[in-house]
């Protein structure tokens, strides 16, 4: 399979996963704000932090009111990680490989892009927001199903899974990072009664609440939630699970020694770290390190298999 094609499959998967996670985030934040008293509600600022776009956001805006943040996250094309940006990235990548991916999946991506664009006003109306975002999530899920059910499960499919799981691992750590920082940074006792709600919202933004209940059978507390969210072998959005999936998909690829070594290290690190007992500061540093290691894994794939990595090699050899 062409290097450019596997690269584009990888990015299509990453952008679609990013889309789904952004929609989840906004949805859960909306719900959370309805449950919390105004005085302690974290507002919309954390979402800007989660997407790692604080600096570019502050260049354009000086407050974090709902409408501004939503506009930035949903349809601002000049934001580096908005829904609109992720979807046009998915669509453009998919367009260059429409001869490889199943026809229906291209049509679905196209339809999803058009739906999100044509209906983006709904996100500003509280009563329509859930429907809009949920539709996006459902369409992303449909696409995952379409790929699973109709695409040849060859090397291309391996890169689809790799892209999806790397993006998912990354997004999960971002959500935990920002959400838990809010929770613990404030020593204010008045927060306590709502602590539970906030940890529930962390779980819910990852669709993890029900699965946590089934799997952990303990009451919701910081340590158990962190342990579950980072290290669960069975929960599909837990970084440990995601990286294990990446490893599994990499097994069948040729010349996989370098990426596999890196993945193995990250996986060991994930399971060995006593994440539930990390102090807030340490947790934040740990998450930073994890995100760096995900980037390194991505780079290892690029170097070994992708056209962009391939061309870089050649340029270095030429000069």
């Amino acid at each position, binding site marked *: 399979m062409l290097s450019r094609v596997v690269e584009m499959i990888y990015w299509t998967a990453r952008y679609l996963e990013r889309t789904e996670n952004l929609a989840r985030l906004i949805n859960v934040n909306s719900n959370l704000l309805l449950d919390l008293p105004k005085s302690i509600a974290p507002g919309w600022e954390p979402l800007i932090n989660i997407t790692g776009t604080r600096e570019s956001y502050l260049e354009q805006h000086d407050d974090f009111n709902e409408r501004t943040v939503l506009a930035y996250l949903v349809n601002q094309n000049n934001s580096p990680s908005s829904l609109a940006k992720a979807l046009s990235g998915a669509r*453009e990548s998919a367009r260059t490989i429409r001869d490889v991916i199943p026809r229906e999946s291209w049509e679905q991506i196209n339809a999803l892009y058009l739906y999100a664009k044509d209906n983006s006003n709904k996100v500003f109306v509280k009563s329509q927001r859930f429907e809009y975002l949920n539709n996006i999530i459902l369409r992303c899920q449909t696409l995952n199903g379409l790929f699973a059910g109709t695409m040849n499960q060859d090397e291309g499919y391996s890169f689809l899974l790799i892209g999806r799981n790397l993006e998912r691992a990354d997004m999960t750590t971002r959500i935990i990072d920002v959400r838990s920082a809010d929770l613990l940074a404030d020593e204010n006792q008045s927060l306590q009664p709502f602590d539970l709600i906030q940890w529930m919202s962390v779980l819910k933004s990852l669709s993890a609440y029900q699965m946590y209940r089934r799997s952990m059978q303990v009451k919701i507390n910081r340590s158990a939630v962190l342990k579950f969210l980072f290290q669960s072998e069975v929960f599909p959005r837990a970084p440990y699970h995601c990286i294990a999936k990446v490893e599994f998909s990499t097994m069948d690829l040729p*010349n996989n020694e370098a990426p596999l070594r890196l993945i193995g290290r990250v996986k060991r690190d994930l399971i060995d770290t006593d994440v539930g007992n990390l102090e807030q500061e340490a947790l934040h540093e740990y998450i930073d390190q994890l995100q760096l290691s995900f980037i390194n894994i991505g780079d290892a794939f690029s170097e070994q298999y992708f056209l962009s990595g391939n061309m870089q090699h050649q340029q270095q050899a030429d000069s």
Partner: protein
Amino acid sequence: MTIEWKNYQAEKFYDELMIASNKARPCGKKLAKYLASLSNSDLETYRIATELSIKEIGVSFTVYNQEEGSIDRSWPLDIFPRIMTKTEWQKIEAGLKQRVQALNLFIADLYGEQRILKDGIVPKEVFKNSKNFREQCIGVKPPLGIWAHICGSDLVRDKDGVMYVLEDNLRVPSGVSYMLENRLVMKRVFPELFEDYSILPVDDYPSKLFDMLASISPRPADYPEVVVLTPGIYNSAYFEHAYLAQQMGCELVEGRDLVVHDDDCVYMRTMRGLKRVDVIYRRIDDLFLDPEVFNKESTLGVPGLMRAWRKNNVALANAPGAGVADDKVVYAFVPKIIQYYLGEEISLPNVKTYICMYEEDRKYVLANLDKLVVKPANESGGYGMLVGPSSTKKQQKQFAELIKSNPGNYIAQPTLSLSTVPTLVKNKVEPRHVDMRPFILSSDRVEVTTGGLTRVALVKNSLVVNSSQGGGSKDTWIVDEEA
């Protein structure tokens, strides 16, 4: 009943379906009757179903727009087919084969011994200014001696009912995917229509295309690696490139996917490393193919590609330089070219053409600018033309100057009245002008698509069928009356 044939204006031009207002041609009787039996709401239902089907299938041509990135627009398909008998088609098919065979011999001769120039059949001056003659191709002998592997010839029918060849496209002719998709859509939407007729299928084109491409591989013993080379997603025909690659099961590559190594062979970069490529169906113009030889700025092409091709390490379809024979001045010589190489009379006629480099022709052209269509030799897509009957005195004067200063670059033809086909216009049937583009594949044998792409000018009285200027298309039926 909504379609009333008695109100249909069939007599003004040659109509492909109707002889007179209420009288269909023999092969179209059942079609006309069926269409007349449809109610207004039937028609509306079918039209909407067709549009939806096209959108779903994703048949689109791209219009690039900076603000919004790229936009796909659906290409309108008119639901009334164009119909032609197998008997008539077979004559046309034979004529096309003869024509393309002669053109291939002609191109090979031009880049070889140039006998036809030495024998004075075609004057040397024709090539002095030819934009599409490529010196870099002189002396090259591509496999089987074929240069134009895929040819799209545009046919039009004049008032007299005769089919003429209007032009040949020997570089990167496009449109075949629309022909294939149109049939797919029509079968989905209109299955009842197909019951009354024995319509010859068109869907074997991708496999014939693949067989043709495989047959020109420089390594015939192995299973050849065939790829489709596209300029990328912003090209207006990208849909077609992707479609054909998908249908043939080939890789769709961009220039940056390919690399020519020190051994002068072409490789594609795969995730497993480099893989040798044998045949490239290129959908990039000559001048962008290889920055080492042609346009140095080109990032679409592959450095070293011409080297590899000249050493016969890779086959290119169409061969670089093949476009020399779709020059409008060369067109005028096609009857002589056929006579010269095949010793036969031309069987599918050319449109009468005045060659301005000849004094007698030039005089006639200058005196009749208001009646003629004047075309420059090397433009395509209708650019730089003068359409006499609809031109102003000022424009005619401008063209008179142009012709006098560079007579070798101009030809002129009488204005044709293209034939019409009944077309659905706001739930009414009206005649609209059409042309037809069959595709001819040449390698060890010559094959022609069954029928071709019928393009229709959707604007009343317009003769412009181009998709970018209000054109649409129709399914083209070649019907076997005996079956």
